[in-house]
């Protein structure tokens, strides 16, 4: 449990601290083109600084750009869809479930190689719907006020990109080298490269904290609250999930045999992982179905070996490739976190920040009925037909 939890919190905390030191300033007018570009940049950033980090960096410029508009709710909702969720699908840095996969042996670039097309198709469809919707509402707006103040667009806290590069490098390194194991107490051994990675991420976070001006963090309204909350929450989740995962690993021999039998195609994995990710946190949900797939496809096989087959066919063996299953689990966990406010941590953060800026955000069910069901569910149904 500790071998999952500690690196998980260190990575989230590191990305949160570094991203919290990057501030985008400037006067932008929230036209459909400007909003499209802001959301696109956030979507592209999300896989590298995490969905929480990208949302934290980009939400305030987006809110400022659209403050004059009467119809701005949909802009924030699509920001949640794309920046806080869909954009984080390409690397283990992007979204917590993918990092858990990485900790369990999925290689760093596996998701980028296998989910890129899913991401391009889904993000493309959602962005196209957004642009059409924003253009429609933009035509209803009265002309923007000329407030006379034109602040040039600029990014501050640039040094944090260096620290970000350090975190990316550390995670990459830990997946590429084998330095043996080191005893870390209580009879537990951990890979040396993982310990170095975690120490380096902590060092990057400390360096960011020391070198970033306080004013920049104040501009992002940075507090430790969210990361502490995540730490408490996941401590509980990671402890309670242990027996569930053991049962799932037992495959059809275990107590959840009915689940293993019912969820037995990539499409079903996509929807089962996705629906649960919409209402529970997507990280433990990913881990649950990751183990369910291992138990179903490679019953009794040690995880380290099974993950190799789950990523793709291994030459010289008779075991089938489980890649399409892992694609479905990864896509379901990351993409469908956008279905509700509680599907992914930054969704709620964006909602709260937008509300405090005066945006009348919809209720929990309003979000689902007005936006996620008519837009995302339709896109995910199309995705199922295209990929599974």
């Amino acid at each position, binding site marked *: 449990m500790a071998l999952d939890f500690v690196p998980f919190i260190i990575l989230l905390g590191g990305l949160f601290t570094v991203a919290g030191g990057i501030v985008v300033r400037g006067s932008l007018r929230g036209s459909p083109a400007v909003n499209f570009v802001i959301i696109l940049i956030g979507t592209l950033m999300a896989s590298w600084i995490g969905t929480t980090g990208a949302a934290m960096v980009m939400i305030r410029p987006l809110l400022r750009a659209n403050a004059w508009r009467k119809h701005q709710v949909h802009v924030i909702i699509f920001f949640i869809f794309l920046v806080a969720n869909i954009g984080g699908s390409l690397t283990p840095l992007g979204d917590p479930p993918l990092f858990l996969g990485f900790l369990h042996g999925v290689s760093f670039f596996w998701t980028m190689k296998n989910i890129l097309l899913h991401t391009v198709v889904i993000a493309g469809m959602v962005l196209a719907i957004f642009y059409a919707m924003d253009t429609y509402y933009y035509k209803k707006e009265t002309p923007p006020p000329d407030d006379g103040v034109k602040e040039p667009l600029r990014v501050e806290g640039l040094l944090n990109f260096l620290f970000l590069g350090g975190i990316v490098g550390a995670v990459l390194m830990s997946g590429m080298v084998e330095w043996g194991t080191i005893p870390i107490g209580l009879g537990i051994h951990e890979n040396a490269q993982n310990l170095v990675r975690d120490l380096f991420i902590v060092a990057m976070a400390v360096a960011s904290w020391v070198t970033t001006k306080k004013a920049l963090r104040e501009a992002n309204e940075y*507090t430790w609250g969210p990361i502490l909350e995540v730490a408490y929450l996941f401590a509980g989740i990671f402890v309670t999930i242990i027996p569930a995962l053991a049962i799932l690993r037992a495959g059809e021999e275990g107590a959840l045999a009915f689940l293993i039998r019912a969820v037995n195609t990539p499409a079903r994995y996509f929807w089962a992982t996705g629906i649960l990710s919409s209402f529970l946190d997507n990280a433990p949900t990913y881990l649950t179905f990751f183990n369910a797939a291992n138990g179903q496809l490679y019953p009794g096989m040690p995880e380290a070996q099974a993950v190799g087959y789950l990523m793709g066919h291994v030459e010289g063996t008779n075991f089938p490739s489980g890649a399409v299953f892992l694609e479905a689990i990864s896509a379901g966990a990351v993409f469908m976190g956008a279905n509700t406010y509680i599907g992914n941590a930054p969704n709620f953060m964006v909602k709260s920040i937008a509300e405090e*800026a005066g945006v009348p955000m919809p209720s929990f069910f309003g979000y689902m009925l007005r936006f996620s069901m008519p837009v995302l569910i339709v896109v995910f149904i199309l995705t199922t037909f295209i990929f599974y």
Partner: protein
Amino acid sequence: MDRPYVEIVFEGSPEGVKALVGDLVRELGRDTEYVYLSREVGIEGTSRIHRFLAKAHVATDHVHLLVPAEHFPVFRAAPLGDLKIIAAHEVIEKHFDFSFECYNRDHAAVIKKIFSDLPEGVALEGFSPRELEDESAKGAELYSPTHDYEFTGKGTAKGPVRGLLALKKAAQDEPLIDVGEVRIVLGKDLLDGDA
């Protein structure tokens, strides 16, 4: 002053009713601007379903028009062409419900102004706004459903048609206020006794 109004229901198109009002400009004078097409100003009138059926040519459209009571005879006497008056009643009460949830002090100031500087004759019923400040919640909003500042309230606005519509317009311009349709309570049937 609560100027008496009459609601006239026409069978016909909204464009036809607008044209009729345009034809009566000389008789109505400056009051032309105080004649309201219900669907344009958010006064409860023909249901959406009925309007949909009318667009689909399954039903005949009904257009509700509010006119100052003293001008009702002008409409009755006017040549109606394809239009037909199918109902006319005194309006005895007008009101709309509103509510708001606000977590931003600038918007709260706007909302307070809207509901304190009321148009003449308009009154609020059941309105008891709640303002909460909780410094300990600052920062916690990023991961829990709380805010360090909250201003919430709901109520009902009642009053003369003109003032009520002015208040409704001001409230609708503030995105954090949910505004309901103006509901009217009808009184005496003014066509009673007509053949």
